[in-house]
Structure formats: structure tokens, C-alpha cells
């Protein structure tokens, strides 16, 4: 019975002796799959420059992660392979103006992984969503470039830059004025600040559609595909409905109320939900595991906070778009929410005291 020689039993380990064999890379890969259709659609709308920027941003994020790991003498390749830095770079890229110059993507990607993530201790330790940290840092640092939107002219359209031309656009000079355009929220904010009522500004109807053929970042135009990707993530069990639904509702409800009260001052719920980063934020950003609460109740509060703050910032703040700020603000509250709202433990009430026994009769 030498098969049972004790040397053949190297591992005396704690239970369980079985597992699902999942891994962090699987999770990240699935999220990226869910994000891919919307991104591809964005490339289709905005052409090669958008792809260039995406590539540069993702590479910069990976480089930032690798650099930090190297400096901290941690294993580089296995950590890069978990896909989190790639996903961070990707999420950042789809929230940038698609025709932004290369250095914006590089600075953003580095900022996201170095300062947004590794400075806090790497994956799982960051307090704030790294992609949004980078986006806000870029917005605050380079407001001009970060608000230079272009209209979707397609990958193959007549006006669309070819591949070589796109390199020139991304790595060379700036975007020609002829292409620039304003996003819906930006236009609304500008006109309102001039004292022009929304009714007048959008007399020909709101430029909102499910197809997303309008100026904006990759992640805010193809809202339908974003939502589809989000629902796919729910079906795969990656996220639950709590954060997306509460966030979208918390944007839509105040928007609907405001619009009902004064349509000249407040955009309607549809415009709010379908424009800007609302969809991307609700399904891909706010649901970031690391920076959102872990309990269901906490997630509802978190999502609602993100949504409400988004609406408040869009409506009353200085910037036209507020998803990134809202998510970061709520990220800061996540530990508090986690502390305050815990799932009810079996056999205990919500406050953690044992429940009173009820006799079976």
C-alpha cells in the first residue's frame, strides 16, 4: 500500500477541499467581453482616432501597473494577467473624448493605475475607482482637451480620417475646429448659463437616441450596447441589479420631477439617462467591486447616491457631466455605508441582536 505513503500526502489543508476554480482574470475577462460590443460600436462611430486613443490608454495603464509592481518588487506578469489594469485602462479610454491626443491617454492611463490604484496598495485596496480618478484628474487638469467632442462621422464615412490620417490626428496636432461639436449636456449647460431656455435650445427636439449617433465619448454614445453589456453581466452573475437600477432611477426620478416643474430649466429623464456617462456609470463604473459596498442594502444606497449626485452636479454644478464626480464621492462613502448597512445575519435582527425564539406549535 505504498500509494498511501505519507510523503504522497503533501497537503493537509483546511476545508473546503473543492472549489469553483474561478479566478480574478475570469471575472475581468467577462466584464471586458460585456464592454466590447459598445466599444466596437464606438470605433465604428468615431473611426481610427478613437481606436488609437483606446490602445494608447490601455497600454499606458498596463505600463503604469507594471512600473509600480516592478518598483515594489512584486510579481509583474501574473498581476498584469489578472486583467484589472487592462480593464481600468479600457474604462478610462471609453470615457475620454474619442479624438483626444495621445498624451491625454498616456497621462490618464498612468494616473489611473499609479495614483488611482497602486499607490493605495494595488488591486482590491484602492478607495476610488481608478478609471474615474484618472478621468477627473484629466478633466481638472486639461479642461480644454477633455471637452473637445467630435460628431460621429463613422469609420468609413467620406469625411472620416483614414488610418494614416488618424495617426496624425492622435499623435500630431489638435483636432480641426471643423470637427468639434458639443455634447448634449454641455450644450444645455452652456445655453442655460447664457440665459437661453432649454425649450429654445432644443426647439427641434433633443438630440437623444438609442443608437447613440451623437457627440460624446465611446462609453456614452452606444447606450443600448452598454445597457446590453450590463444586462449580460447580470445574467453571468457578475453584478446584481441593485446598483445600476438604483442609480438610473435616482437620476431619472429627480430629472422627471424637475422637468415636470420647469421644462425650460430641467432636462427630462430620458435625456439624463441616455446621455453622458449615466449608462456606463451605472453598469460598469459604479458596480466596480472594490469601490462599492458589498451588501445589497448598501449597494442600493450607493447606487441611489451616485444617481442623485449625478443629477445634482449636472443640473446645478459647474461641469456639464457629473457621473465621475458622483461615483468618486460615493466611493468615499463606501466604507461608511459598509459599516452602517450590513446584511441581516441568520438568526439575528438587523441590529445584530439574536432574534426572539418563536415556538413551533
Amino acid at each position, binding site marked *: *500500500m505504498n*500509494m*498511501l*505513503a*505519507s510523503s*504522497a*500526502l*503533501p*497537503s*493537509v*489543508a*483546511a*476545508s*473546503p*477541499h*473543492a*472549489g*469553483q*476554480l*474561478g*479566478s*480574478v482574470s*475570469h*471575472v475581468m475577462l467577462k466584464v471586458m467581453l460585456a464592454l466590447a460590443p459598445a466599444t466596437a460600436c464606438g470605433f465604428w462611430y468615431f473611426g481610427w482616432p478613437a481606436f488609437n486613443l483606446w490602445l494608447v490608454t490601455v497600454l499606458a495603464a498596463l505600463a503604469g501597473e507594471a512600473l509600480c509592481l516592478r518598483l515594489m518588487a512584486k510579481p509583474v506578469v501574473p498581476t498584469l494577467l*489578472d486583467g*484589472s489594469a487592462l480593464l481600468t485602462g479600457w474604462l478610462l479610454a471609453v470615457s475620454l473624448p474619442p479624438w483626444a491626443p495621445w498624451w491625454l491617454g498616456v497621462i490618464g492611463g498612468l494616473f489611473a493605475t499609479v495614483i488611482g490604484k497602486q499607490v493605495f496598495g*494595488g*488591486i*482590491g*485596496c484602492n478607495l476610488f475607482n481608478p478609471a474615474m480618478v484618472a478621468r477627473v484628474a484629466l478633466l481638472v487638469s486639461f479642461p480644454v482637451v477633455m471637452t473637445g467632442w467630435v460628431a460621429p462621422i463613422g469609420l468609413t464615412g467620406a469625411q472620416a480620417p483614414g488610418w494614416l490620417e488618424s495617426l496624425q490626428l492622435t499623435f500630431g496636432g489638435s483636432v480641426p475646429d471643423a470637427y468639434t461639436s458639443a455634447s448634449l449636456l454641455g450644450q444645455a449647460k452652456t445655453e442655460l448659463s447664457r440665459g437661453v431656455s432649454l425649450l429654445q435650445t432644443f426647439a427641434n427636439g433633443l438630440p437623444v437616441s438609442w443608437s447613440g449617433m451623437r457627440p460624446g465619448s465611446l462609453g456614452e454614445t452606444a447606450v443600448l450596447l452598454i445597457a446590453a453589456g450590463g444586462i449580460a453581466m447580470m445574467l453571468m452573475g457578475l453584478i*446584481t441589479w441593485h446598483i445600476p437600477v438604483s442609480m438610473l432611477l435616482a437620476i431619472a426620478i429627480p430629472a422627471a420631477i424637475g422637468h415636470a416643474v420647469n421644462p425650460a430649466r430641467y432636462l427630462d429623464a430620458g435625456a439624463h439617462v441616455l446621455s453622458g456617462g449615466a449608462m456606463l456609470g451605472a453598469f460598469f463604473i459604479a458596480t466596480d*467591486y*472594490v469601490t*462599492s459596498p*458589498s*451588501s*445589497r*442594502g448598501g449597494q442600493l444606497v450607493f447606487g441611489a447616491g451616485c444617481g442623485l449626485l449625478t443629477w445634482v452636479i449636472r443640473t446645478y454644478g459647474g461641469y456639464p457631466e457629473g457621473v465621475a464626480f458622483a461615483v468618486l464621492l460615493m466611493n468615499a462613502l463606501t466604507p461608511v455605508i*459598509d459599516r452602517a448597512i*450590513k*446584511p*441581516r*445575519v*441568520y*438568526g*439575528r435582527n438587523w441590529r*445584530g441582536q*439574536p*432574534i*426572539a*425564539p*418563536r*415556538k*413551533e*406549535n
Partner: protein
Amino acid sequence: MGILERLNGGRWGVHPHDDHKRPAADTPLRVMPLPAKLCVPLLQHVGAPAKPVVAVGDSVLRGQLIAAAQGAVSAPVHAPSSGVVTAIGPVTAPHPSGLPFDAITITLDGEDRALEAAGVDDPLALEPAEVTRRIADAGIVGLGGATFPSAPKAQLGRKLEVQTLVINGGECEPYLSSDDSVMRHRADDVIDGVRILMHAVGARTALVGIEDNKPEAIAAMREAARAFAAIRICPVPARYPMGSDRQLVEVLTGKQVPAGARTASIGVLVNNVSTCAAIHRALRHGEALYRRIVTVNGGAVAAPGNVLAPVGVLVEDLLAFVGLKEAPARLVMGGPMMGLALPHAQVPTVKACGGVLALTAAEIARPAPSACIRCGSCVKACPMGLQPLEIAARVRAGDYDGAASLQLDDCLACGCCAYVCPSNLPLVQSFQHAKGTLWARAQQKKRNALTRELADARRERLERDARERAEAAAKRKAARAAQQASAAAPGGQEMPS
């Protein structure tokens, strides 16, 4: 489950996609031939260890009492076969630590001579107290894994006027099918045991919860229980850990057991189906609990299946009987979710051992742990509604009190969290470590209180002694002075100046 909980994704537990129960569960029950020796442990239950009543060199018969119960919560141990007691002392326990515990080693004579057994024709006519006594004498303990002696449990149920018995046929651990086997092949025994137990406890109804992945067992048990209206067979969804008493009670009765309390506090008593079968054999046939059905399974086993084996058989012998097709990478007593890894194969089985697994390297392979990404899978999976990730973070930081404040005490160690964790974190081990540390601290505190008391008592005693001595000395001195005074009074002039 309330609407709120349902909306909140109230599906606790995990649903192993491959439970590895078949084909082992479908193979016919085999009886293991007698090995050369058995090591029957003295502590196979919760409570005080049994006290040997035989000496080295004694001959024993099958069913003979070899160690008697000590105290209220304890259980006797019987010889599983005939032979000679060759040692009473430490053997390696079936425990990852590899530490020893005491056992009676019997070298078998192979004749399997039995003690005359005295069964009762109609146990239901006996006084409940007499039924309980016979259960106690047969050394029956909870065979689901909790190993609480059944007799005191029944007494407690009677005292608290429990009306409902929940009979646990959950057997939710992957690989295991011993309870399944008992229900399939001995359904009548189980139902009879349930009736006897109901009589002993005074319960009015019994709910038998069986996971719906055991259709044969459900059919057999339905058939056996047809005649008894008080016994209901309730299929429950197959989900781990359905076999945990708290979860099964909630599914069957809709009520939760208060934290830190027993199920009896809500008027429910939970017993395992194998325990019921054992009760049947003890009462009807006078047979003590010295053998049971053990599932031997795992990728390394050549002929997996259920084996009727004596208690105290060495794992080594059990595996030899079923054969190994490759060297196992890990031996586990119990199921893969909560079972204990064995240090080696020379360890005895115990009464509550429902399975022995010989797992291959491929079966236990798990990627190296990576950082927690707070995905919340563990929160979703935890059947107790705990937040394993938060507890683990505190344990990792050495904040055991913080972990305790997140109700670490309520953790069942069921392993659901570790099972689903995409980062493969050693969650269960960290919780076990924290629980052990907290326990050790509590012990130390008690010890401190004791030693402080002793030290204070000693100090007081020493002070009292000193005082008494001083008083005695003073008294003596006074007496002497008085004596001298009286002696000197007549002739004071003689005093030296």
C-alpha cells in the same frame, strides 16, 4: 423567504455543478470484511470522553461495552467485533493536526462472536425515559457530523416540549451518499427510528427533509412513511449547505433559529436519518452503535461506493478494501466542503464518519490566492448572511475582536465562501484560526481570573497567618510579662537594673 429577502437575492449557499455523488451512490451496498485490528476512539462525541471498562488483554465480544459514558453529556463505546484488547492509549486522531487521542485497540479474532442482544418488540410501549436510556446505552450520537449524544438531546427536547422533529436527509456535501444509501436501502428502519424518537421526545410531527437530487431515496422514504400521517417527507432543493440544521429548519418551517441558541429553542429538534436508523436498531434489535455506512469516494478510489464498516477501522484498511487506482493527494474524512484532511491513513474512523475521500491532485487543485477584489461572491454565498470578506480582512489585520463584532461566532465553517471565491482566499482557515485565537484568549482570561483569585486567597491567608502569629506572640508576651510581674512583685528588688 420574504419578498424583501427574495429581492435581495436571498439565495444562500452554493450549487456545486458536479456533486460527484454518482456513480458511488448507485452502487450496491458492500459489507467490509473484518480487518486485523480496530482502534476504537474514546471520544467520538461532543462532551466528556468515555472511560474504558476493559483492560489490555481482555477478550471482548461484538456489541460489548468497552468504555462507559462519563457525565451527562457523553456516550459509551462498544466493541465492533470480537477479539482481544491489545492497547489502550494514544493513536493519531483523524484531524489535520496529526495529534493523538486515546483509543482502545482490539486485535480481532475474525470470529465476530456477538454478545446476546436483547431487543424490544414494541418500543413505542416503553416509557419515553426508558427509550432514552436505551438510546444512551447504545452509544448513539448525532451521525450527521455534529456528534451530540442523542439521548441528552431527546431529553432536552422532551423538557422543552418540542412538537416537531426535523429529520435531516439533506446530505448536501458533494461525494457523500451514506445517508442516501441508508434511506434507499433501510427506509423502513429510518421511519421506525423516527417514530421511536417522536415517542421519546413527545413530538407530534416529523418533517423529513431530503434534497431533490436523491429521487430514489425520496421514493423509498415516501413508501415507508405512507402509513404514518405524522411523518411527512419533504423534498427540498439540492443546495449546499441544506444539510446544516439551521438552514434545513428554515426551509422546512420558515423560521430561523436565534443566534447562539439551539433549534430546540424554537420547538424543533433535528436528527439525522442515519441516527434514526441507529435508534431503530438499538431499540428493536438491541444493537449498539458500532458500525455504520461509510461512503468511500474520490478520484483516487478504484471502486467508490458505500461500505458498511465497523467503527474504528483504519482508513488505510478501508481504502485497501475499495482499492486505489492512483496515489491520493489528500485524504479527507467527511465531505470535501467541511471534512478534515487527514495527516496519513493510519487513523481510525469514528461514529460520525459518513465518508472517506481519497482525492487526486486534480480534484484539490486551486490556483494560488490573489488579492480580494471585494466582488461580494462570498456575501452572496454565505448561508448565515455574514460578510466573509470583511471578516477575513479583519482577521488578516490581526483584529480578532473586529472579526468577532461581525458575528464570526455565527460562522458554520461550511466553506461556501471559500468555494466561490475567485481570488481563492483561504477564508475558512482564517476564520478557524480567528475562532481558535478568540477561544484561547477567552480561556486565558478565565485562567487569569482563577489565578488572580488563588493569589488573592493566598495573600489573605498569609496576612491572616501573620496576624494570628503576631497576636499569639503578643498574647504570649503579655502572659509572660504578667507572669514575670506577678513573680517579681514580691521581690522586686531582685530585678537587675
